């Protein structure tokens, strides 16, 4: 079941399912990013939105009550993904970054901050390693190896993993999936900074959790 919202696009009001809207919004953002240096960027985006509205209208006239994910997907295939559209006619061969990285959710919004979630598509136990791997854009296998080594060597890793499993939310909605993967892939400085931020965050969540546990057990007595 999907909630339906209305969007105003190209002077038309169009009903669209909520998750389809989010995909569409991220697609348009990716186009804005693609054309950021173009003279007349707004005009290009406006023309594209007109075309999108036109395609949607055809769909609605064909009997659909609202636009869904499949419709948005088809429109994106027809129009083309942002990375295929940019540049002057003579340019370097397009680098398909997307094919190197598993995309669980298409459309990357640079303005979004990337967030740490457990990855539902990349999980063996709880998706903790998958989520961490997604956050840093590295192979989940490597993350798992590191965690496995930590657990075997000290046993401390096990507790950390369990805390992480409980504290880090599972990415469920498309919005969460996009946060999980979205934004710029991180570079070294970002990683270092984000790492200390996330560690502090984790520490706080761990402290909150142990406080709750303490309260729970003291009540039990």
């Amino acid at each position, binding site marked *: 079941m999907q909630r339906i919202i209305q969007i105003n696009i*190209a*002077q*038309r009001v169009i009903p669209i399912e909520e998750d389809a809207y989010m995909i569409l919004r991220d697609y348009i953002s990716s*186009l804005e990013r693609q*054309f950021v240096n*173009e*003279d*007349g960027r707004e*005009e*290009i985006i406006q*023309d*594209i939105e*007109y*075309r999108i*509205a*036109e395609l949607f*209208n055809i769909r609605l006239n064909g009997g659909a009550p609202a636009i869904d994910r499949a419709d948005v997907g088809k429109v994106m295939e*027809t*129009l*083309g993904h942002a990375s*295929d*559209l*940019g540049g002057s*006619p*003579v340019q370097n*061969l*397009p680098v398909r970054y997307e094919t190197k990285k598993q995309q669980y959710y298409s459309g990357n919004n640079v303005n979004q901050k990337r967030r740490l979630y457990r990855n539902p598509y990349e999980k063996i136990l709880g998706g903790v390693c998958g989520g961490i791997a997604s956050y840093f854009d590295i192979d989940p296998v490597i993350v798992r190896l590191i965690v496995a080594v930590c657990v075997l060597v000290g046993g401390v890793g096990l507790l950390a993993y369990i805390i992480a499993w409980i504290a880090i939310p599972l990415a469920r909605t498309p919005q969460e999936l996009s946060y999980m993967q979205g934004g710029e892939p991180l570079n070294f400085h970002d990683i270092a900074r984000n790492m200390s931020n996330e560690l502090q965050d984790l520490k706080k969540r761990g402290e909150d959790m142990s406080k709750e546990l303490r309260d729970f057990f003291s009540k039990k007595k």
Partner: protein
Amino acid sequence: MAMNIENTASQMRKGLLELCILGIIQREKEAYPSDILEQLKKAQLVVLEGTLYPLLTRLKNAGMLDYRWAESNSGPPRKYYSLTQGGVLFYTQLRNSWEELSYAVNHLTSTI
């Protein structure tokens, strides 16, 4: 070392798209984007629709194209593009380049 035919073909198409778009507008005197897409499809020139819009805007900003808004009875207003004087000149020159090029290529790739 695999050569990707799709990439090469796509580069060829991208290079000629400008000429084709100008040709359509020249022929129709006035055309709006969906119409241009229709014509391209009819002539079986395969392009991602999205490549059209930045090209149109670039041509307009370079003074090759002009447009006017026209009310449409089946929905929101449409942008009708037309060639400017400079656009006609540019188109003629592009067309000549293409004729020369296709003559050369046909010759060089024929089995004569």
